């Protein structure tokens, strides 16, 4: 097996954040969390995450702003794919995220935990062998 994957979970709702964390650690991932935009931005800038789950609606600095900063100013240690977490499948916002460098998105309410894991594993796989 490869080295343990490190995942950053950016989510402002405590219950959801802790749920993702528990789900992913039980699955054997290393996790870190951020509960608002500024904290998230400074963690992402350090780099080194294999995957970042990024909520869009965040206090202090929203997901779009974070993506924009990253695009203009990529961290010296690169990160893996950024997967945007949304509540509503709003095309326009999601398209903006893609334009700003996000790899994918998950509509939180549409997925059961097992489906979340499938998605995350897929993103990690595609990151390893970019097609």
């Amino acid at each position, binding site marked *: 097996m490869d080295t343990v994957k490190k995942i950053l979970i950016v989510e402002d*709702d405590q*219950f*959801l954040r802790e*749920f993702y964390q*528990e*789900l992913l650690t*039980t699955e054997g991932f290393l996790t870190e969390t951020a509960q608002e935009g500024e904290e998230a931005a400074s963690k992402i800038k350090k780099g080194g995450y294999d995957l970042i789950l990024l909520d869009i*609606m965040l206090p202090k600095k929203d997901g779009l702003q974070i993506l924009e900063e990253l695009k203009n100013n990529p961290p010296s240690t690169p990160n893996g794919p950024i997967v945007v977490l949304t*509540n*509503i*499948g*709003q*095309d*326009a916002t999601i398209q903006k995220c893609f334009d700003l460098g996000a790899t994918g998105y998950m*509509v*939180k*309410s*549409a997925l*059961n*935990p*097992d489906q979340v894991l499938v998605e995350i594993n897929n993103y990690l796989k595609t990151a390893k062998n970019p097609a």
Partner: protein
Amino acid sequence: MLYFLINPTTLLYITAISATFFIGLVLFTVRYGIKYKRLLDEKNSYLIAFQKLYTIMASTVTLEETAQKLTNAIAFELGFQAGVLTIIDKQSNSLKRIAVSQTPEGIIGLKMFPVPYKSIGIPLTYTGNLLIRAINEKKPFITHNMIDLFVPVLPEVIISNIQKVMKIKTSFVYPIFYHNEVIGAMIFSISGEEHEIPDLQREAIMRIMEVVGTVIERVKVYEKLALTSQSLAIANEKLKELDKIKDDFVSIASHELRTPMTAIRSYAWMALNRSDIPLSAKLKKYLERTLISTERLIHLVNDMLNVSRIESGRIQISPEVFDLQSLIQDVVSEVELKAGEKSISLKVNYTNLPKVFADLEKIHQVLLNLIGNALKFTPKNGNIVLSLMSDGMFIQTTVADNGVGISKDDISKLFQKFGRLDYSYTAAAATGGTGLGLYICKKLIESMGGKIWSTSEGMGKGSQFHFTLPIASKQVINQASVNQTLREDGMMPLEPTAI
């Protein structure tokens, strides 16, 4: 067809402009044509006069303005010292002065009136007034006494003084016609005797009165229309605002609802699947029902959001050319697992068909709902068959099942909001339906130029759901690109619905 393309303003302008040409022609003939034939050669002045009247008419939209300009034009062009336009006011049952020419004498007279001239209303029943007689008898009159035109409203001393200062000797009174009705009267005054105006000219004035009548009636209609459309526009704006508020509210509410709903869903799932103690059968059942209900709630919120967006016309339809059969293939493999759980066989009858022009995502949703319904309302070991056919213009897709069927009376209720049928309640309760699916399908299919309907032999005899989509012909695609440019901003996507 062309008739509908002309709005009231345009109609008014057309009337006004043709009326102007007519008046211009008559005025010209009267003033220059008969008296001074040679002036006819002066094309320039003719054109200038025309141009003047043309701009006056085309640019006036209120009754007041039109009346003023008509009165001025006639008085100046025919060389009267003063002109007055009066019209019948049905509300007060009187004749109202609405314009006095801005000729020098007209202005002098105006200044001398003890009351604003627009407030002068002569009772229609008062036949001692020459204006009223002209109206009643539908013919012109002449007077040398201005008081004949003001009785019984103003006293004789004042009027004869005004007449003196204005140096008016003769006044002509003409009824104004609209079709065969008299709608008012005009007064033209000169400082000389009546024979100064030749008979031919007086006859011409009669004809001008018909044009004046037409123009005034049209302006009145236009004023009414303008008022109505103005209030309609205001009401429409308000409705739009309300609609947006409603839509925003539903959006925000559904967004806020989703976070806790996602948490409930996720933790219920964790309790069922990641518990560190074995679950009792009872606890398992409770948790399963929590999970199902939450999924249903999320589904409901999505559908409500979709309905709200559809109803405010904010669902973006982005049609493209695609192969319907391969989309059906995708949807079928998506639901195969679910079908397998109920041992329902899912078959597609393929044929060679042209591509359709529709919004792929939306058709995906429609197919998911139709197949999902068929799965919900068909008992174990049933059959679902999808088939397609073409009539050259449209492709018709049919989803047929051999499930619970629909009674004749119920078929019409299906595509309504919350149109869940009674008998299906148990089936729906167990599977999580809200009765919005078919309503949304109908709106979506119709927005793409198709139709959707259902057939059934009756209860217990299975049902068929059919929908049509336009074949991607050049004409269909061109038409869509024309409509595309008319679309507004603020469009929203469709929220995904699960089956």
